[in-house]
């Protein structure tokens, strides 16, 4: 038995990359190909989780119920997982229907400093015997001590593990090491990591997290995900094999899915392109990319400037509405330009 549990976020985080237009057929094909590949859980839903389909972050093609019930039909071995952020979704409107639809595993997330907003949700799920994990998003914005404090809260609510999300891909290797080691030393529950590839090190940061004691790997096939994408699971699994860390996965099944199913889901390959690198450097939630590019076009401003300004304002995940305002302001400023974001980026 491997101590590493893989949380497959391909259909969930990948949803961002295709404007939340994942179809029932794609969910079916993916679940059929991956059910026996050794994933601990396969997570489905809108990129921002249950209840997040909105004009703010993007309307979803399918309802939460349609996505969950489709995946439910094809998953036997892997647990069916969902993600939810309180403030987008609620117990009454999202969690109870998801339980009725047969979801096995829940991840409840919040901005990394706001763990107490997940209290009622984690407690509700734990009391009802559901497997529930806490997620701290944008973890680069808080100190290791603060992250430990927030993780301890989630542990006290009944979470079975804490997953840190590098939602902006703004992590350095050293940041991962210091935070994960502190959490592993002080928590009684599992620690997990979810990395973004904005600076080209998503597999490396995940590996660093595992070396410090993380046992939950939250990543995606082909790195499919918001912005520059996530930790590419097949590459990580190969690396872990070389390093003697067992994953108990069916490697060829995973590669077959990457080669045959993923091309039908992904309409473009994800990589750290120029815009995504700026996004990571600015520390902006990776899923803002689509919205920034659209606003840059509408208001005729440099998308890199939007990222730098949004980063400076310390926007958190879900604050996509700030983009239109920033783009409008930049357009007005362009005539008598006061800011030089390029210089700021290099400081």
């Amino acid at each position: 038995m491997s101590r590493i549990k893989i949380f497959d976020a391909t259909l969930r985080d990948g949803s961002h990359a295709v404007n939340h237009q994942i179809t029932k057929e794609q969910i079916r094909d993916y679940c059929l190909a991956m059910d026996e590949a050794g994933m601990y859980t396969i997570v489905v839903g809108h990129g921002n989780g249950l209840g997040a389909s909105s004009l703010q972050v993007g309307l979803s093609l399918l309802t939460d119920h349609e996505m969950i019930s489709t995946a439910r039909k094809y998953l036997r071995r892997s647990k069916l997982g969902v993600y939810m952020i309180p403030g987008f979704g609620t117990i009454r409107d999202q969690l109870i229907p998801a339980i009725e639809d047969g979801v096995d595993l829940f991840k409840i997330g919040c901005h990394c400093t706001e763990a107490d907003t997940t209290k009622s949700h984690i407690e509700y799920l734990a009391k009802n015997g559901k497997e529930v994990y806490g997620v701290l998003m944008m973890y680069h914005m808080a100190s290791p001590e603060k992250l430990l404090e927030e993780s301890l809260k989630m542990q006290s609510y009944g979470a079975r593990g804490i997953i840190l999300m590098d939602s902006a891909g703004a992590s350095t290797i050293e940041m991962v090491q210091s935070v994960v080691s502190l959490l592993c030393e002080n928590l009684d529950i599992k620690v997990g990591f979810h990395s973004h590839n904005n600076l080209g090190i998503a597999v490396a940061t995940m590996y660093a997290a595992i070396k410090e004691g993380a046992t939950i790997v939250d990543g995606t096939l082909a790195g499919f995900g918001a912005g520059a994408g996530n930790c590419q699971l097949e590459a990580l699994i190969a690396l872990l094999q070389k390093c003697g860390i067992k994953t108990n996965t069916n490697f060829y099944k995973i590669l077959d899915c990457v080669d045959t199913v993923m091309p039908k889901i992904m309409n473009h390959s994800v990589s750290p392109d120029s815009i995504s690198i700026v996004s990571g450097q600015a520390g902006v939630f990776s899923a803002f990319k689509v919205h920034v590019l659209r606003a840059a076009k509408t208001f005729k401003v440099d998308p890199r400037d939007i990222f730098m300004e949004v980063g400076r304002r310390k926007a958190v995940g879900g604050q996509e509405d700030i983009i239109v305002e920033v783009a409008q302001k930049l357009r007005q400023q362009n005539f008598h330009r006061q800011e030089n974001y390029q210089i700021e980026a290099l400081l």
Partner: protein
Amino acid sequence: MMSSIQPKGGVESQPFKVNAAIIGTGNIGSDLLIKIERSQWLKCSLFTGRSLNSAGIKKASERGVTVSAKSIDAIIEDPSCCDIVFDATNAESHKYHSKILHRLKKFTIDLTPARVGKMCVPVLNLKECIKVDNVNMITCGGQATVPLASAITSVNPEAVKYIEIVASISSKSAGAGTRSNIDEFTQTTRDALSYFTKTKNTKAIIILNSAEPPVHMRNTIYALIDNPDVSAITKAVKNMAQRIQKYVPGYRLLYEPVFENGRLTTAVEVIGQGDFLPKYAGNLDIITCAAIEVAEHYAKNLIYERSKSA
């Protein structure tokens, strides 16, 4: 008619103040206390919570206000202490309090998202609200966005397919009640959007931002509308914002309605008056300002009725 009753001299000599009790001594209750001190029509006769050690209770004691740690029991023991009760506890507690306050015949203004009583946005339905015995102030996000959503819808109600709002507030301004009521917040705000705009499809999202220095309260309103008349909508939105500014001085449009990406969008910022919490806590300010507006209107009516029967 009521304008004839003006306080004579300073606030101290005003003989016609109506007594109000505040239950809940957190951020919202404490902010109400400070605003009531400025009111020409209201007097805080009781400030009651669960602990005599809270920051709010200490502030109230310093100001010579009667305080109690018996929460609602303090009102049950002395029902004559007030005509108006502000409930600034949490949704679960208000469900219990509301039954008692109804029996005691107190005009109750509920600042939790419990939604027991009539939903109230002063600029939209103040007059109807003072006729009932329990008024619900929805949520801070509701007070900020529902009137603008209503203005947007008023131009051509049939063409509006969907309305969505996003409220972002600073972490520091969200007290324990707000945090534990995050589900009630989104559900109650959404219900208010549907009720006041008569649009079935609505959604509310709340975001807490922990940036330092704390961010101002910021609200975005989105609408899906067939062929929107942007100039007529802009006129209606600006007019509504001006009317809200009369009781929420820090309310201002961040940008006028724009039609982009197939959606109509406008945003508003609320800067607080810096009463109990600093100015970033516009979310606190907007709901307490709205509650005071309702209470003052009720008080003026009561004073008028009493002067007639005297």
